[in-house]
């Protein structure tokens, strides 16, 4: 399937085009949007082929895709498209005068490379190369996090690269141990499929140590508590469209690696993998819920909510069984789509108000209805209010947990999710309603509002209707999480 190859080539070519010394940030922005659109269409084609053939490959098995990787690829390209549109307004119209065309060009070059690395991670077959793709996501986004060049942004960028790179090195150790296992345990290829097939023959101690190191290593990048400390910093200091990519999809792309290890552990019978996934997940949800209550910065609020949702997905994966895994996939899609919307809304609010402090933003509705509506819908959506996507996916998770009689997990999860819901809605309503404050900013450019509108469509639709092709795709992905 040539679509897989093109999916990686298009963003790299776009990056090369943006790198041409034309001194025109506008051109680089347009190239990025066109490339993102092409990537989204290619991803749709990949989904179509995966639904027809189950698993597809390209470049003689060098690239592979099944339903689970297709879900990730589809989400990456959708967020890349909306964030590309938002960048066009946010970075170009807001910052070009301030930054100069060369920095804007550099932004779009790295934007495309960042997207390429996130597409490579779920598509590459050999796991050592997957690791390199994950490391590249950090390296390509480092400058994007530091883009606004304030002391805070630089501090955030430093914490981000040093901690997630250290995590990635530990994850590499885990991967090399697993590779060792595939060699000693019957010469299976070092791919997800090979690991799964060889899992029962690989010595249990190696699988176990390999998983633990991967959990610590990649858990750092996912933002699992207690390795999450860098995440609210980086995800709040980067420009809004980059936050949407970091929080919305980069975390999920790395979490995907841990999810792939779940059936491997299940097949090797080495430990109680469900208990591990559930307890790590619950700890993240709990800590994030408490952080959300006393958060003072609305971008940090959405970042903390990412930690919460990563925890929820871990729990859903850990519950095991098809209904819970289907809910986990639904939750991944719902979180990615809603979180990117939230950060676009946060970017629009920042343009209007010029501050990230929750307490200083009041009565946004009368000052800028567009930004206020975006914030309200995004905030309610991510908190889990009906009729939006996160409500349905969380409902599925609770239902699966009750059906499989995990009552303690349900109880704890419900307490923390409700706590997070109240915290987010409290902060959001305070910002949106009430007497207007004095703001010296301006409304966001029209193209940003378009990006917000496009991002909102699936958040709403997935709240009450799952199209049949997505239904089959999610079901296939859920089956990939079982052994």
């Amino acid at each position, binding site marked *: 399937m040539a679509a897989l190859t093109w999916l990686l080539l298009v963003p790299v070519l776009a990056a090369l085009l943006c790198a041409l010394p034309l001194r025109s940030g506008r051109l680089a922005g347009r190239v990025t949007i066109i490339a993102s659109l092409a990537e989204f269409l290619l991803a749709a084609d990949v989904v179509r082929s995966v639904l027809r053939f189950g698993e597809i490959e390209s470049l003689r098995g060098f690239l592979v895709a099944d339903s689970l990787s297709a879900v990730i690829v589809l989400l990456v390209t959708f967020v890349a498209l909306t964030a590309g549109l938002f960048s066009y307004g946010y970075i170009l119209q807001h910052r070009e005068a301030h930054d100069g065309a060369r920095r804007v060009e550099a932004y779009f070059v790295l934007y495309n490379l960042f997207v390429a690395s996130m597409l490579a991670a779920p598509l590459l077959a*050999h796991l*050592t*190369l997957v690791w*390199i793709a994950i*490391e*590249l996501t950090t*390296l390509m986004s*480092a*400058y994007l996090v*530091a883009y606004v*060049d304030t*002391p*805070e942004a*630089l*501090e*955030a*960028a*430093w*914490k981000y*690269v*040093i901690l997630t*790179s*250290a995590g990635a*090195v*530990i994850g*590499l*150790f885990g991967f*090399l*141990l697993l*590779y*060792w296992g595939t*060699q*000693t345990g019957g010469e299976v290829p070092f791919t997800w499929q090979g690991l799964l097939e060889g899992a029962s023959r690989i*010595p*249990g*101690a*190696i699988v176990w*140590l390999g998983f633990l190191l991967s959990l610590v290593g990649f858990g750092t990048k996912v933002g699992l508590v207690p390795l999450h400390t860098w995440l*609210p*910093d980086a995800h*709040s*200091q980067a420009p809004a469209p980059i936050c949407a990519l970091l929080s919305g999809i980069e975390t999920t792309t790395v979490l995907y690696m841990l999810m792939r290890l779940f059936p491997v552990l299940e097949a090797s019978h080495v430990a109680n993998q469900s208990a591990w996934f559930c307890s790590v997940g619950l700890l993240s949800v709990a800590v994030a819920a408490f*952080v959300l209550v*006393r*958060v*003072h910065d609305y971008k*940090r609020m959405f970042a903390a909510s990412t930690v919460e949702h990563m925890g929820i997905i871990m729990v859903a994966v850990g519950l095991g069984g098809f209904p819970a895994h289907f809910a986990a996939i639904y939750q991944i899609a719902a979180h990615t789509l809603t979180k990117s919307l939230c950060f676009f809304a946060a970017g629009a609010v920042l343009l209007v108000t010029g501050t990230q402090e929750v307490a200083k933003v009041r009565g946004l509705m009368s000052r800028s209805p567009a930004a206020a509506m975006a914030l309200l819908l995004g905030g309610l959506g991510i908190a889990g209010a009906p009729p939006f996507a996160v409500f349905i996916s969380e409902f599925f998770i609770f239902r699966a947990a009750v059906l499989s009689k995990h009552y303690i997990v349900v109880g704890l999860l419900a307490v923390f999710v409700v706590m997070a819901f109240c915290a987010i809605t409290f902060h959001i309503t305070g910002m949106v309603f009430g007497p207007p404050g004095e703001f010296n900013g301006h409304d966001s450019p029209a193209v940003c509002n378009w990006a917000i509108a496009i991002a909102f469509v699936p958040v709403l639709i997935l709240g009450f209707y799952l199209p049949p092709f997505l239904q089959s795709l999610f079901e296939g992905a859920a089956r990939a999480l079982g052994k």
Partner: protein
Amino acid sequence: MTVPGSVQTLVGWDALASALFLLVSLAIVATRQMLATLRLFVIQSLLLAVSATAIGIGTHSVHLLVVAGIVIATKVISVPWVLKITVGGEIYGRREIDQALTIPTSLILAAGLVFFGFFISERLFLTISVPEFTILNLPVGIACVLLGMFTVTVRREAIAQLMGLLVMENAVFFAGAAIASHLPTLAEIAAAVDLPIMTLVFGLLIRQIHRKLGTTRVGELSALGER
């Protein structure tokens, strides 16, 4: 391929490299000079290349000889060079680095980490039988990953933290040379590209931090966080 010397001699060379590798990692924890840290890292990378060569000849793995070449090209030559052009002599010249703990305290904790690394490997060796190279390299690798992490945690200076990260990566490769000696060439080439990019990104970020904040003591930055 003709094997120069018996396998036992090669194990002896690898044992020497492992011991020195561990010592150099401890020295990186203990040293106070910025430039000395960089030099120790280069020595450590050379030891990694020695170990990879010994295992490569011992197990007839051409891949590991390629790895040894890549290690010398990237870690011994390109990393110090990239750091020099991005960060500049002014920043990583002859000066002292401070850290959160005193040197003696650090060394005691570091010794504990080394014991822990060997303990984990011994537990692993109880359950599976492994070749001699792995018995040497895996515990040293695990111990030095922990030492590198420790360096990242306690150092306040950006470049010293970066060195800790590079020590971690060296350590993973050191263990990997024994346990993953037949990785495809593609992975090696990719790793060869990855490391200079990593150094470049870190170097540019350190330069930007120095330009904006006038210091590279990243451990003291604390504008962010929950109030």
